[in-house]
């Protein structure tokens, strides 16, 4: 289990390959990557604030729970904070399991908890100023599945 909270960019290709290459007893690897969308609404940057200490603890707990519930061989969470430009990768999760259903479910579980139970707050910077991103009802709803 590997949890990293960092300001620096990460290399998705290298992380995904390294994760998958150590999964010979698993068979199924799912990754999710979140990217700052570069859409035509004048977004200049995404700023991500977090709660040092609690963030690492919350992510480790989420990863442990996923690992136990789906008998994962491995789980990985990388989440950045600070200022990110459009097109930059915000975070990734990866889950390795013997069967695809477990790998998919575990990755979705990790994402659903990251969205609304890990202490990160996103702020969008546009030409018109800065706006805190609001929590979505759909994200809270998604947690009920688990």
């Amino acid at each position: 289990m590997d949890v990293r909270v960092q300001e620096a960019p990460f290399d998705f290709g290298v992380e995904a390959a390294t994760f998958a290459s150590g999964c010979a007893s698993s068979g199924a690897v799912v990754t999710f990557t979140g990217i700052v969308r570069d859409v035509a609404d004048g977004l200049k940057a995404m700023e991500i604030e977090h709660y040092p200490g609690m963030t690492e603890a919350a992510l480790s707990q989420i990863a442990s729970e996923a690992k136990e519930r789906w008998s994962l061989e491995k789980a990985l969470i990388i989440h950045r904070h600070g200022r990110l430009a459009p097109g930059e990768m915000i975070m990734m999760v990866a889950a390795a399991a013997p069967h695809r259903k477990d790998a998919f479910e575990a990755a979705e579980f990790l994402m659903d908890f990251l969205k609304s139970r890990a202490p990160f707050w996103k702020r969008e910077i546009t030409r018109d100023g800065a706006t805190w991103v609001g929590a979505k009802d759909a994200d809270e709803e998604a947690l009920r599945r688990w």
Partner: protein
Amino acid sequence: MDVLYFAWVRERIGIPRERVDTNAATVMDLVEELRAREERYAAAFADLSALRVAVDQTLTEFDAPISGSREIAFFPPMTGG
């Protein structure tokens, strides 16, 4: 104890953290004390349904006890991922 503020709660109150001497028994008692201090606190804590609280870095409810706790954090609903 240390009281921490994040995101727009931090902006509204104007500081990221402060030391608070209190005999508050629960999170709610602490909120009432802070509200009574100044307008900026009253504004930040106006709508508790828009706030979340962590005691010693664990998410909890506003009726949770805080005696003996070292760190209380207030923030809006999280938007990670």
